[in-house]
């Protein structure tokens, strides 16, 4: 069976696998792949007579909030959001993320937008999935130049949440909180342990069950293309058009 699965579809499928136990997934701005994954997981949950709530901040329709822009953060702090996605211009081996810039702060060499809500969300949402498509030594670094939000905290710090996974174009890592270290878990097609070692700036463990990323089956691909694509086109029209021509 050749479904001509696209790279983006494969990534969406990986993320959807991680949302199966959730009641409420929230997706920040400019995140079409996480957004599509959340909607796919919501659709699939119906088959198990389960309700998954999806909040997509970029969309009016999937924005469940009515208390203004602060409600996402309050809601997360209350423990009402199970999964949230964060990115990073740099991510390091301790799961520290940098959304601010490279070089020495404050007058960095290259300035990026800023930390957004990450310094809170990373602490309070139980499952943070780090998602950064580019997998290279410049994105996955030994130490970030600026810690927008730390991967781990001391025991006396209130932290019910934190990093659980890191997904890139090439691989899926689990994060081990005790060892403060990522563990390679899934490889994209055409990737090997060696290629990942070469392209990753930090040390990582290798999961004993390391395997290839599961391909989405025909049912999932059909759900994605027929049912989810039109939804996505509503709030990420450019993305939906590029991937699915809708």
């Amino acid at each position, binding site marked *: 069976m050749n479904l001509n699965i696209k790279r983006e579809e494969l990534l969406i499928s990986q993320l959807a696998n991680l949302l199966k136990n959730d009641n409420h997934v929230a997706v920040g*701005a*400019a995140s079409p792949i996480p957004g599509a994954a959340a909607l796919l997981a919501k659709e699939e949950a119906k088959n198990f007579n389960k309700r998954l709530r999806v909040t997509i901040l970029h969309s*009016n329709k999937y*924005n469940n*909030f*009515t*208390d*203004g*822009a*602060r409600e*996402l*953060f*309050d809601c997360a*702090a209350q423990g009402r959001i199970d999964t949230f996605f964060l990115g990073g211009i740099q991510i390091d081996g301790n799961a520290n993320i940098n*959304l*601010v*810039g490279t070089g020495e*702060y*404050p*007058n*960095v*060499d*290259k*300035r*990026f*937008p*800023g*930390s*957004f*809500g*990450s*310094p*809170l*969300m*990373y*602490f*309070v949402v139980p499952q943070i999935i780090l998602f950064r498509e580019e997998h290279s030594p410049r994105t996955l670094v030994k130490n970030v130049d*600026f*810690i*927008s*939000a*730390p991967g781990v*905290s*001391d*025991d*006396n*710090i*209130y*932290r019910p949440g934190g990093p659980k996974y890191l997904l890139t174009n090439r691989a899926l890592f689990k994060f081990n909180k005790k060892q403060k270290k990522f563990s390679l878990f899934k490889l994209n097609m055409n990737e090997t342990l060696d290629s990942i070692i070469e392209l990753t700036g930090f040390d990582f463990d290798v999961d004993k069950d390391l395997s290839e990323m599961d391909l989405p089956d025909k049912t999932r691909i059909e759900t994605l293309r027929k049912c989810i694509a039109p939804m996505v086109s509503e709030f990420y029209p*450019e993305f939906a058009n590029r991937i699915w021509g809708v």
Partner: protein
Amino acid sequence: MKSFEEFTVKEIVDQIEDGILLGIPADYSGVPMTFTKELINKGVKNLKLYCLPLTTIQGDMLIGSGCVSEIETAAVTLGEFGLAPRFSQAVENGKILIKDSTCPALHAQLQATEKSVPFMPLRGVVGSDVQKNRKDWQIISNPMKSSGVENEPILLLPAVQLDVLVFHASYADRNGNIQIGRRRELATLAHASKKVFVTVEEIIDTDFFENELSAATCLPALYIDGISVVKNGAWPCKLPGVYESDNDEIKKYSIAAKTQPSFNEYMKQFLKS
């Protein structure tokens, strides 16, 4: 009888003095672009921008035009059109002071002023470089005996009061109440501002308070110091529920703003438009 002050945009701009702390709404809250244009035309200097929690071209244009000395924000970005070039360069070159913050902290600092308390506590954030670079933030050991673990560090954020807030909205009613719908962060901003001016698409001859449900969508007139009718006053930004952003124009801006000379060229046209 209109029971509020109706101003021209120029009269609002006249209220903006050099060096004030100006409230900046996010792109989804109603960006007052016509006002911003007139503000740049006036040549205001040393503005301190307080973004709730981020800004797009409004902040980038003000920075590129040399109006800004300081910005407190969770992000400056052109969204799908990439980085905010004038912001990025100004920070890289040390031309403006950047107070990097995070969305919940920007909300909480205004909520402190909303309640007239000197500070608000926040969890999270501790141990980040965002926190470590903010000398105006303090960390104390949780003083509340009944809660938390031993020696739990708690971040205290100072109350921030804005000098002036200006935003753009769709409608005002004849009594000067502003329809804000779900954009309740505008209420927080207004509560924490000494002066609030609003540009609106239209003043409609109704009283939003005549009906409990439409009352619920309003920022009450008591917080508003002046209103100006400006059609398309958010252009090229969107006004949620009324018009989308003019992506062609923002893309054009994003390209022009990459260097200061081409930004200057762009602005010459823009300020005349």
